[in-house]
């Protein structure tokens, strides 16, 4: 027993034990120095912390490997203190008392930082993965939309009524929405689906319809092309009609004071009969009666009228009633002056 205990092997083991203990002390000293460095350094940058973590992990690995070797060596020696309490294969070695778990001081310092960083990394990685998946799905949808739009474009080649404004808008939208992976198909003319462009198109169509109605009314407007020319014709025609009304009112003003009882003498029936005859015979709207001569101030010069001149319009056949009758019952027409 004593020979077995005090042998060269045991001495070598003791020497090994001493070396391991020394190494442990040396590692602990190094860790203390690192702690001091960390405490002294005011700016705890993440790079430095990573380096420290790396060193700490290496030291732990070294310690574990050394202890495992030591246990393997000392497992076959010494008495087997199996008292029947524990499992039979377990044996307490001589050097088992020397086995010390190294205190990870770096873990104590950086545990909270690591946890928070890990949580942050997890939170960051999840949305990144989601966005990638969403991008993939979006790409698929866009490709499908492109194919559909190209099919529609081929079918709707005839629709080329929209103006350059809509095409400009679509091109602007294309440049804004263009991405690296997405090839944008330029919208064809007449296919703009924006609310504003649709409303503008409807407004333009409405205006063009109303211009067509005006074109039908105004004579000589069919020859003119373009909105500006048509508007010129319309303006001229309205002004012409207003001048005609002015001229006719002047004519009636000249006739009215001189013809004292002319208006009162005419009965309603005769007036209506004459009116229908004149309107039926007359096709042109424009007045062919020569203008009254005007003086410098713009008023009528009655002295310049030719005394031998007679009116070209003759009264219709049939005797005029001389009795003055009430001209027209205004209350029946609903016109109250």
């Amino acid at each position: 027993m004593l020979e077995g205990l005090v042998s060269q092997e045991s001495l070598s083991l003791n020497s090994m034990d001493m070396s391991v203990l020394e190494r442990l002390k040396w590692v602990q000293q190094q860790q203390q120095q690192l702690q001091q460095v960390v405490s002294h350094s005011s700016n705890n940058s993440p790079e430095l912390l990573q380096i420290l973590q790396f060193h700490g992990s290496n030291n732990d690995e070294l310690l574990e490997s050394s202890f495992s070797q030591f246990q393997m060596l000392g497992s076959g020696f010494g008495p087997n203190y199996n008292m029947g309490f524990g499992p039979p294969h377990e044996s307490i070695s001589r050097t088992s008392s020397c086995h010390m778990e190294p205190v990870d001081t770096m873990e104590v310092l950086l545990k909270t930082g690591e946890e928070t960083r890990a949580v942050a990394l997890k939170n960051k990685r999840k949305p990144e993965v989601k966005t990638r998946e969403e991008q993939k799905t979006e790409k698929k949808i866009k490709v499908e939309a492109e194919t559909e739009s190209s099919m529609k474009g081929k079918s709707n080649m005839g629709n080329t009524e929209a103006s350059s404004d809509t095409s400009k808008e679509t091109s602007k939208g294309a440049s804004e929405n263009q991405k690296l992976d997405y090839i944008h198909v330029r919208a064809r003319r007449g296919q703009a689906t924006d609310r504003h462009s649709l409303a503008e198109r409807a407004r333009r169509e409405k205006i063009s319809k109303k211009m067509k109605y005006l074109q039908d009314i105004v004579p000589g407007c069919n020859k003119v092309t373009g909105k500006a020319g048509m508007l010129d014709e319309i303006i001229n025609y309205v002004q012409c009609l207003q001048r005609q009304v002015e001229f006719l009112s002047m004519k009636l003003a000249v006739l009215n004071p001189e013809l004292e009882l002319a208006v009162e003498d005419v009965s309603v029936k005769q007036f209506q009969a004459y009116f229908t005859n004149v309107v039926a015979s007359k096709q042109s709207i424009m007045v062919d009666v020569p203008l009254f001569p005007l003086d410098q101030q713009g008023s009528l010069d009655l002295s310049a009228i030719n005394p031998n001149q007679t009116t070209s319009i003759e009264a219709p056949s049939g005797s005029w009633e001389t009795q003055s009758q009430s001209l027209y019952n205004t209350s029946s027409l609903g016109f109250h002056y």
Partner: protein
Amino acid sequence: MVESLFPSIENTGESSRRKKPRISETAEAEIEARRVNEESLKRWKTNRVQQIYACKLVEALRRVRQRSSTTSNNETDKLVSGAAREIRDTADRVLAASARGTTRWSRAILASRVRAKLKKHRKAKKSTGNCKSRKGLTETNRIKLPAVERKLKILGRLVPGCRKVSVPNLLDEATDYIAALEMQVRAMEALAELLTAAAPRTTLTGT
């Protein structure tokens, strides 16, 4: 992918069903607009409306003549010009009344008479400063509008009560106003011819 490229027949049927009522609504609106325009034009072209307008105008002219006879006899030029203006105003008012105030221009003409009456009661305010200098300043500061907009503005001034109206409404009013003016010209022309024919020749010839 293939399904998205070639949609099924059922889907196309549904889309056509959905779109049909919209198309029909727009078509109905167009038909209604056309009908309204045609009715407004036909209304002014009918013989009956012309007769009514002419009769109302004759009645108005008789009243104008009665007023002018009561007033003091001034120079003939002033009388004629004043009477002409009065006759024109009455003709316009009668035209607006025959339109029954359904359009902007008719309402504007009827309202202008009330404004004219109010203006007479008010005292004329003295104008301060040179008008010419102001006009010059405004002319220099004016921005030139495009041709179409400028012409639309002129048309808005010509049609009464349409200075601050949108383009489609202005065109509607212009169509109605032109038709009404044509009728007015025809009626006044016929009335003038009737009066000249009914009058003794001596009054016109001056013998």
